[in-house]
């Protein structure tokens, strides 16, 4: 590690088990940390002090998501439960099996929960608005279209899109659209401008679709499965893992097809987490060895292909989350360490 580039560590904290997810509240200073021991811990983002302990999920807390523009924290675990922790207190929803992924619509009115072969749509108070069972395979991720009117369900075999009405109540049982692709999707993201959806896949590839035409393309040949990818706030760049280098694809104009990615060698182990600064252009990447790098791509690409900062979290990083103001990034590791670093 290049110590000359080291960034000040703002604070460190520790939870009892391996961190499965971290999330910084959009509305205030709290950082939620879910761990595989089943605990959810709420830290003060200013100093890392424990503010409160959240719900527990027997067998492990696996996912969490803060409501955009609101105060509700959704957590899910191996106990088959989703807990919505709002100002009014916690609300528990039994959804069935392991909660693999959760995603809020941008409006904050709907929460999609992936559990086994089922997707459940909840409102912030915990009411079940819709339930799409019988997916072809275990759902690994859920994404919303920009306006929240479509819910994309990622599983083996592609993405299935379901209509979500504003109330959520009149959801049709059948998908309105299917992006078939014979591969196992592990993670999916939609660009903030709603034009593209991308998936990282078990077969060491990234698959991208234009949301409106369904036109697709594949970037294959990564050394390992691609289990992390992230779009920047301007929908210009997609960063993805699958190797020890961060790959940066240009989605401007006609998109990534026919372009070569920028390859950023900043890690000594496979990339395990990626997060873009919500306010600026910084990309935080982390590796299975605990290395964390900050990159600053410009509109023309990235110069020098060297990180602007590097530091280490000590062990495999499983979650990265930015302070909403963009001034700091928090990492959680398999050793239960949580640390905040200034951008």
């Amino acid at each position, binding site marked *: 590690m290049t110590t000359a580039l080291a960034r000040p560590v703002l604070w460190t904290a520790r939870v009892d*088990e391996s961190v499965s997810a971290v999330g910084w509240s959009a509305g205030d200073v709290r950082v939620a940390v879910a761990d*595989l021991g089943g605990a959810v811990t709420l830290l003060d983002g200013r100093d890392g002090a424990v503010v409160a302990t959240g719900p527990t999920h027997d067998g492990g807390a696996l996912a969490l998501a803060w409501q955009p523009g609101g105060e509700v924290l959704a957590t899910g675990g191996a106990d088959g439960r989703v807990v919505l922790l709002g100002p009014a207190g916690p609300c528990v929803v039994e959804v069935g099996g392991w909660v693999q992924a959760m995603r809020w619509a941008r409006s904050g009115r709907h929460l999609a929960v992936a559990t086994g072969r089922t997707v459940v749509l909840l409102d912030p108070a915990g009411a079940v608005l819709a339930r799409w069972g019988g997916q072809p*395979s275990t759902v690994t991720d859920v994404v919303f279209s920009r306006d929240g009117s479509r819910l994309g369900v990622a599983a083996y075999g592609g993405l299935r899109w379901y209509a979500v009405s504003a109330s959520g109540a009149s959801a049709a049982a059948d998908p309105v659209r299917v992006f078939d692709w014979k591969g196992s999707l592990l993670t999916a993201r939609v660009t903030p401008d709603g034009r593209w959806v991308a998936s990282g896949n*078990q077969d060491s590839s990234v698959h991208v679709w234009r949301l409106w035409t369904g036109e697709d393309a594949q970037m294959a040949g990564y050394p*390992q499965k691609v289990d992390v990818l992230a779009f920047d706030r301007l929908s210009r760049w997609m960063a993805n893992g699958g190797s020890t280098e961060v790959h940066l694809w240009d989605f401007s104009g006609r998109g990534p097809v026919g372009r070569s990615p920028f390859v950023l060698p900043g890690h000594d182990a496979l990339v395990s987490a990626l997060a873009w600064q919500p306010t600026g252009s910084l990309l935080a990447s982390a590796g299975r060895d605990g290395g964390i790098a900050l990159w600053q791509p410009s509109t023309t690409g990235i110069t020098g292909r060297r990180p602007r900062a590097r530091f280490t979290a000590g062990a495999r990083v499983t979650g990265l989350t930015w302070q909403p103001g963009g001034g700091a990034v928090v990492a959680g590791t*398999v050793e239960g360490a949580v640390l905040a670093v200034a951008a």
Partner: protein
Amino acid sequence: MSAPTADKVPVTVLTGFLGSGKTTLLNRILTEQHGQRIAVIENEFGEVGIDDALVIDAEEEVFEMNNGCICCTVRGDLIRILGTLMRRKDRFDRILIETTGLADPAPVAQTFFMDDEIGGQLRLDGIVTLVDAAHLVQHLDDERPDGVENEAVEQIAFADRIVLNKTDLVDAGELAEVRARISGINRLADVLEAVQADVDLSAVLDVGGFDLARALDLDPAFLTESEHQHDQTVTSVGVELDGELDIDRLNAWLGRLLSTKGVDIFRSKGILAVRGMPERYVFQGVHMLLDGTQGAPWGDAPRSNRAVFIGRDLDRAELTDGLRACLAEPVPAS
């Protein structure tokens, strides 16, 4: 990052038909191996009830990795469950995966080859198949439509150890018939007779079935036996050959063999003498996936080649000739 083999957590796959005694064996392992932290991945929740074991329900979700290649099917649920288990600080000493009697063992084994995160931290120790002595023959003889493998045959073929359970329910003649049927399919696996799954646990745990460092322990008679007619289409073929192999010829032959016959070859293992390589070349495979490494040095031992293939419609002559064609050119005596 891949951990050294010794640091990897062993995983045992327990398979067998309903009523074969899997749950009994599972409960025995959990009770008698106390002191060990064991995680059990079950296909049906609630069968085992041991307080200090973590029991996880699995879905037996099989998918193809490479656009429809049947040989590259993996278990998606295992990738997720094992991946999460291995991230815990609270590590397990051992993981048991129970599969139903209807499951094809190949995707479970292939998961350890195909997913780096799993293969890097866990080692598949062995596939243990439990069979009911009183009902096995009937299961083996169940007719299946063309192209559909009989699951009982598959489970015997893939096994590293076979627990022949409920031997108290058959007489000596029936037992001999069952044993003959098993060895007709799989000549590599040890067969352990049991009543109420009362086998020595050390014989089903730490088997090293996929461990390249452990030598093949082959029955010499099996390798030299003359052509043997089986009534089943799934058989074991052993090939033994003196001399040294040419590495390029060997790679070309194995590659060709597994790409054309990989669907039919369930498992393969071998210890080979390669010209120019002081160590034994050890390989083992599941369908088309092959793992090879350098084993112990030959030293003064005579250099020879032994390989075993278990699969469907195997042609002994073709396999023997194929390996023989890989022999290196003789070197003129100096």
